[in-house]
C-alpha cells in the first residue's frame, strides 16, 4: 500500500483548526506527527495513491486549510503490481 508523508498548512482560526483535527483524528489511515509554525506533519497509508490524493483534495477544501503538501511517496507496490501482471519473465526483461 502506498505510504505518503505530508505537511498541512494549518488554518489560523481556532474553529477551523479544531474541525480539521477532528477530521484527521477519526481517520484510521492518518497518523499525526509534530506541529510547528502553522504546519502539521502526517503520514497516510491508503489502498491506492488515488485514495491518498482524494484525501488531500478533501483536506485542502476544508475551511482555512492553506495547502496539503506531499513530501514523501513510496510506491514500490506499483512495480510489484506491474510485475505480477506481466509475469516473471517479462518483469525481468523490463529491468
Amino acid at each position, binding site marked *: 500500500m502506498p505510504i505518503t*508523508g505530508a505537511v498541512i*498548512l494549518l488554518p489560523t482560526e481556532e474553529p477551523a483548526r479544531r474541525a480539521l483535527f477532528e477530521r484527521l483524528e477519526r481517520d484510521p489511515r492518518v497518523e499525526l506527527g509534530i506541529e510547528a509554525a502553522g*504546519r502539521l506533519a502526517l503520514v497516510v497509508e491508503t489502498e491506492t495513491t488515488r485514495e491518498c490524493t482524494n484525501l488531500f483534495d478533501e483536506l485542502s477544501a476544508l475551511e482555512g486549510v*492553506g495547502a496539503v503538501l506531499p*513530501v514523501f*511517496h513510496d510506491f514500490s507496490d506499483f512495480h510489484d503490481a506491474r510485475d505480477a501482471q506481466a509475469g516473471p519473465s517479462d518483469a525481468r526483461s523490463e529491468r
Partner: protein
Amino acid sequence: MNRRDLLRGMAMSAASAAVLGAAEAQRNVVQLGTSPRDGVSWQKAPCRFCGTGCHVQVGVRDRRIVAIQGDPLAAVNRGHLCVKGYHVGLAPYGPDRLTRPLLRRNGELVPITWDQAIDVIADRIQANPAGFGFYGSGQWTIPEGYAATKFVKGGLGTNNIDANARLCMASAVTSFIATYGVDEPASCFDDFERCDVVICWGNNPAEMHPVLFSRFIDRRSRGEQVTLIDIGTRRTRTTGYAQHYLEMKPHGDLAIALGIMHLLIREGTYDRNFVERHCAFRALQEANPTLQGEAIDFETWKRRVEEYTPERVQELSGVPAAEIRRLAGLFGNRDLRITSLWCMGMNQHTRGTAVNNLVHGVHLLSGHWGREGDGPTSLTGQPSACGTVREVGTLCHALPGGGAVANPAHRAAAERLWSLPEGRISDQIGPHTMEMFRQFGLRPEEGGNIDTIWVQVTNPGQTIPNASEYFDRSRTIPGKFLIVSDVYPTLTTRAADLVLPSAMWVEKNGMFGNSERRTQQWFKMIDPPGEARDDCWQTIAVARRLFDRGHPGMRDAEGRFLFHTTDERGREVPIWDFRRYYDVNVDERLFEEYRGFTATKHKNLAPYREYVAARGLRWPVVEKPDGTWQETRYRFVEGEDPFVPESAGFQFYHSTSNDDRAQIWFHPYEPPPEVPDTEYPFWLCTGRVLEHWHSGTMTMRIPPLRRAMPQAYLELHREDAPQLGVANGDRVRVESRRGAIELVAWIDGRGQPPRGSVFVPFFDERLRINLVTLHEYDPFSKQPDYKKCAVRLRRVGRGAAS
C-alpha cells in the same frame, strides 16, 4: 523493524523535517546513498515538471524508482511537493514507452536500427543543410541544448534552431532585454518570504507553480498578513486565496499598468530619487519600430501616459477606476514590499513585450525594485526554459551565455571558444518557431524553405496554435520530413517520418535551470527502456556521422570533431558510440565548455562539481577569495550582486542607454487582433491544469493523475449556458475561424470565466484545442497569443447529467 514500519518512519521523518525547517532537515532527512536497511539508494534531482524547480530525492531499488521524497535541503521547496511532483517517480513507467527507432515506410512506422536512423538524418541534412531546422525545448537539459546549438550554429553554420520556450516566455525575454539590456529576472523566489503584497498579473500560481505559491500561503498559516491581488480574465484557484480579484477584459493589463503610472505621476507618488538616479525613458519609433526603441525625455513620457486616467482605464480594461486607484496607492507607498508575478498571461499576448515592459516600468517608476520582496518576477512553465533556452541560447537569434548572432563580437567569441574557423557562424537570424513551422507547411515554390525538422523533447503537433495550418499542413506535402525524439507516442510522433526513442529525466545525466536563475544537476539513476537513448547522444551521433562523411562544418579549425572529447590521458573517447557514451561525463565536459561563454553577460556559472554538491545555485556564481563559490539572489543591487560596486546602490550594468540605467517604457494600449463579434461572439482562453503538465505526454500516463483529470473540458459561465441551451456535461462544439472541436461543458467548475468567455485546457491530445487557437504573435518576441481569440459555441449532444 519490517519494511512497512521503516517506510512509515521515513515518511514521518520527511514530514517532520519539512515542518521544522532546514536545520532539523539536516538531521532528519533520508541520507543520500544506499540505505543498508532496505537497499534503496537515494540521489537528488530536480523535479521533471515545472519551472519552480523543486528538488526531489529519488529512491531506487533494483534499478527502478520506488520512492520520491521532496528534498528538505532544497531552498526552493524545503521538502514540499505538489501532486505532480508527488507522482514524478512514475513518469518513466507508462505502458507504451518508445523503445526502438521507427521509420515511416508505405505509411507505416516500422522498426529500424539506430545506425540506419542516424544515416537517415545525415542524408536529409546533407541533401539540403539550409532546409534543416532543429526544434527543441525548455525541457532539454542544459548540455542537450548546448550540444544542439553548437551542432546547428557552429557545425551547420545556420541559425535554424528554435525552441518551444518561444511559445511560453519569449515576451519576457524581449522585455528584460528592452528594460535592462540583459535577459532574466533580477529577483528570486526569496521575495515570497518578505513581500507584503503579491500581484498576480494574469497568473494562476496556485495551480501552475503550486509549491512556490505555498511558500506565500505558508506565511499566512503562520499568522502573517500578506495581501494577494489577482488580476485576470477568469477566476481560478489563485482567486480563492486573493483579497482582491480584478477581472479585466483581454488586453486590459496594458491599460491597468498605464493607469498606475498615470496616477503615480499625477499624485506625485513616484520615486523621484530612484528614477532620477537609475532610470531613462523610452518608446517605440514611429516608423520601423525596434526592440531598442528610441530615448524620450521624462516630459514626453509623462505626456503620453496623461490620457490613461482611471476612468479611461476602466473603459479599456473593465476594472473599476477605484481599483486602479487602489493599485496606484499601493505602489505609491514605499513602506510596502510588492512582488508582481506573471507567466503565460502576459507572455502569450500579441503585445507581450509591451505589457512586460510596462509592468517593469511600474516597479521602476515607483521604486519598488531591488529590495527583498519588492520587484517584478516572471515565471516559466518549463523546468529549463531559463537554464537551457534562454541561457544556452537555443533560439534563432541567440548564442550561448546571452550572446546574439547579429553581434560580430559575440560571433567571434563563440568561434574562438568553439575553435572554429572565422566566419563559420552565420549572422543571419534563423526562423523563429512560428516561421519555421510556417515554412515547413509550404511547398518550396511557395517559400517553404524548411524541408526537414528534428523535434526533441516537445510536442508541437499538440501545442502549435492554429495547428491545422501550422502543423498538419506539412504532413500533406511531399518532401517534407519530420524527425521526432521523444519518450512516449504523441501527436507529433504519430505524424513523424522518423521517430527516435529517448531517455528521460533520471535515465540520463542532466542539468536544468529554473525560473530564479538556479542551475541544478543530477546523475543518471536508472536505465532507459529498450533502445531509448539520450537526446544529447543523438545529436552528437548525427554530428559524427556527418563528420565521417566529410561534412566540413563538423570539424573545428584544427580538423578535430566538433564534439572532440578526451579521457584524462588525452585519448579521444568515441562518445558517438552509445556503448562508450558514459565512459566520460559528457554533461560535465559540455557544461565546462559552456561556462566559457557565461561571463560576457555576467551570467557566470561555477564549475560542474559545485552543482553536484548543491541543490542548485543562482547565477551569477562567482568565486570568493577563500575558494568557495557564491550565488546571487538579487542582480544589479549593491551588496547582493558581485558586479555592482560599493556605493552604487543599484547599477544596471547592461543598460541599453549605456549609462547604467534601466528603461521605463511607454507603450500605448492596443486592442487584441481578434475580438468577438456577431459571428464568433465568445472569447476563448486556453491554459493548463494542476494535474497535467503541458501536453499531458507524461502525466496522462500516470494513472492517479489521469483519473483525477481524465479529459479536457469547456468552462462556461452559468448565465451563458442556458442561453445556449447547454447544461453541465453537455457536449459543445467550440469553433473559431480556424477550426473546431467538441468538448464537455463544465459550469461552475474549477475556474470560472466571466460572461462571454470560455476556457479550455490544452493537455488532452484527443481534444486538440490548438486547432481553434490563433497564430497571431507579438512583433518582437514572436510569441503567439493562446489566451484570446473569438469562438462560437453550439450544443451538439446531451450529457448524462441533462
